[in-house]
């Protein structure tokens, strides 16, 4: 082994092999992800039906704010976001700190039971929720038999109850998923500081809010950003649980984008523009959460 290779210093060699490892993945991501995103951005500035696209500048971006259905979808997304994400995250946090108790028996069983919902398929759980809350479904049957209702209530036929059911479904599906993040975060907190707090006479309430929450801040930030992202892109529940109804009261932005591309007369330019609005919203919200949540500076 001689020649130019000899001139490479150790750190350059390590850098080079690092790049060699990175290149394949980087090329794949660029070709499969970044290039289509770039094309979608260009597409979002065009308008037309099917293949006959022509340049339209910012027309699509102006148009979406005049689109009553899209505005309704945007509002619905934010309703889900404002109610569902905080409830779910607090619930996940409480469950995680309960399950983190060293003396708890059957811990593994409880953890699995709470995590299990997020191993179910999005479509099948949505369909199950739909039949649970049907007019002759389980929930109505129970309510009638216990005398709380005289006839079945059409949960999915009324705007408010339909939204509540979507939020309930989301909480059921995703709480366990977020709890796992908190549990792993809690593993990194030294147990002895909890013992110290106990000796100092701190109540469980104080321990939770003054110790667990601040120490878990990075994990909470991560789950908050992921949940925001997931909620803004919500699709399966809107399509399969309520089909956007009643009267667009539960339709989400992604569902409307799908309709615009595949159900209605295809308008890919407009659909791409709406997708970019979701991207911008996710980016802005994530940025705000980082500003508010990351106290490392």
């Amino acid at each position, binding site marked *: 082994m001689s020649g130019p290779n000899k001139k490479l210093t150790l750190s350059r060699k390590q850098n080079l092999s690092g790049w060699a490892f990175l290149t394949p993945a980087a090329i794949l991501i660029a070709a499969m992800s970044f290039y289509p995103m770039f094309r979608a951005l260009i597409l979002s500035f065009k308008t037309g039906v099917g293949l006959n696209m022509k340049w339209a500048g910012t027309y699509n971006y102006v148009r979406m704010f*005049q689109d*009553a259905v899209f505005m309704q979808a945007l509002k619905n997304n934010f309703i889900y976001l404002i109610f569902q994400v905080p409830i779910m995250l607090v619930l996940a946090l409480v469950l995680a700190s309960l399950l983190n108790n060293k003396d708890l028996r059957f811990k593994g069983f409880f953890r699995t039971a709470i995590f299990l919902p997020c191993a179910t398929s999005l479509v099948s759980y949505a369909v199950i929720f739909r039949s649970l809350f049907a007019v002759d479904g389980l929930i109505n049957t129970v309510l009638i038999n216990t005398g709380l209702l005289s006839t079945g209530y059409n949960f999915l036929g009324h705007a408010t109850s339909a939204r509540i059911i979507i939020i309930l479904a989301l909480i059921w599906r995703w709480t366990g998923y977020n709890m796992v993040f908190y549990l792993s975060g809690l593993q990194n907190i030294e147990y002895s500081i909890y013992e110290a707090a106990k000796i100092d006479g701190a109540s469980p309430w104080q321990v939770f809010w003054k110790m667990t929450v601040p120490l878990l801040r990075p994990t909470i930030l991560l789950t908050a950003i992921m949940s925001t992202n997931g909620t803004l892109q919500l699709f399966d529940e809107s399509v399969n649980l309520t089909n956007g109804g009643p009267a*667009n009261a539960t339709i989400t932005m992604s569902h409307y984008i799908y*309709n615009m591309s595949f159900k*209605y007369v295809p308008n890919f330019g407009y659909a791409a523009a709406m997708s970019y609005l979701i991207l911008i919203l996710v980016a802005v919200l994530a940025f705000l959460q980082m500003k508010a949540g990351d106290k490392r500076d």
Partner: protein
Amino acid sequence: MRKKVMAVLVAASMVLSLTACGGSGDSSSNNTEGKTETEAAGGENELTVWCWDPAFNMYAMEEAEKEYQKENPDFKLNIVETPWADVQTKLTTAASSGDLSSLPDILLMQDNAFQKNVISYPDAFADLTGSGIDFASFAGAKTAYSVVEGKNYGVPFDNGAVIACYRTDILEQAGYTVDDFTDISWSEYIKIGKDVLEKTGKPLLSCLSGESDLIVMMLQSAGASLFDEEGNPSMVDNAALKEVMDTYAELVKSGVLVEVNDWDQYIGTMTNSTVAGTINGCWIMASIQTAEDQSGKWAITNMPKLDKAADATNYSNNGGSSWAVTTNCKNMELAEDFLAKTFAGSVAFYETILPASGAIATYSPAAKSDVYSEPQEFFGGAPVYAQISEFASKVPSNNTGVYYYEARDAVATAVTNIVAGADVETEIAAAEDTVNFAMGK
């Protein structure tokens, strides 16, 4: 040094394995592409077809293959089961990428989507006007779905003529027969419906909430549409639409119509005997007949007509599909000849498929066949297929337009709000605005 060699080797092997993956992926996709292409080219005598129902349209295609093979023993069909939603997605993808090579020779298309697809992707579909297929032998209202700018793009297949089905045993308890429901108007229907509900506790009709099937059926029964001749939305000041909306709201409020949230529940209301009847395209009979214990307890007749609309009839259409030939077809003559001699030319073929699949033709000569007048035990021994063929010939034609699905959804939103108590005129105006907006006006 050794480390470096190792690193390079590992990296190289990774790159290699990746390209190997990519390569094998490519070659396999090339293979399949090559395969579909040869299939589409049909060698000499093969055609690929997309359709979706093994018991219905796929079965019909298989029988058509056998029929055509009598004259052309080498002929082969490659029938690929593709649900409608997938056909639409694949079609949209292929046509918008400009690469039509993934499309089959012939595909089955929902009548409601025909105009939209042909106008959005004119290059993807073959004009069949001068192909020797006799379009005049099909029901006019049916053929109209697949005619764009005076050109025929589709060969009509199954019938969506609307039938009203009633449970004769439940009606009997309330003191009615199916004759009391024949040639009636909606106001009479609601009157009898209230009486049936009072005496038996069963509504006459169930419907999917958030879907506008019934609305559109009622509109078409009076020859009315959500669009005018030029394809512009005409909802405001559309007297027929207002009457339909009022009638629908009245049906829901009186309890004669019960709304459910999904298709399974809708079928369930019939098979579980929670309702005394239904109104839908005649293809609903296949679902009704799944409840074998109800055999002999059903009867069919025509649907109620609007009270005030000028051209009101008791006949309408919902659903149905037609065969389209794509421009990816390499053997156009074969495809045209195949369709002309089977779906558009053979009464014997329709006689074969009817008893097994219930596929009721829109091919007029077939309706005169004896097979159609055979009594059907499930429907109390009535010759229902002949009845339906007769209904089909009386359906008024209406204009679906390109923006049909947008209009349907907008009207469904409006009717949901109207049932919840909103003002009819305001909601119709809002629906028209939504459609105008979708059309970029």
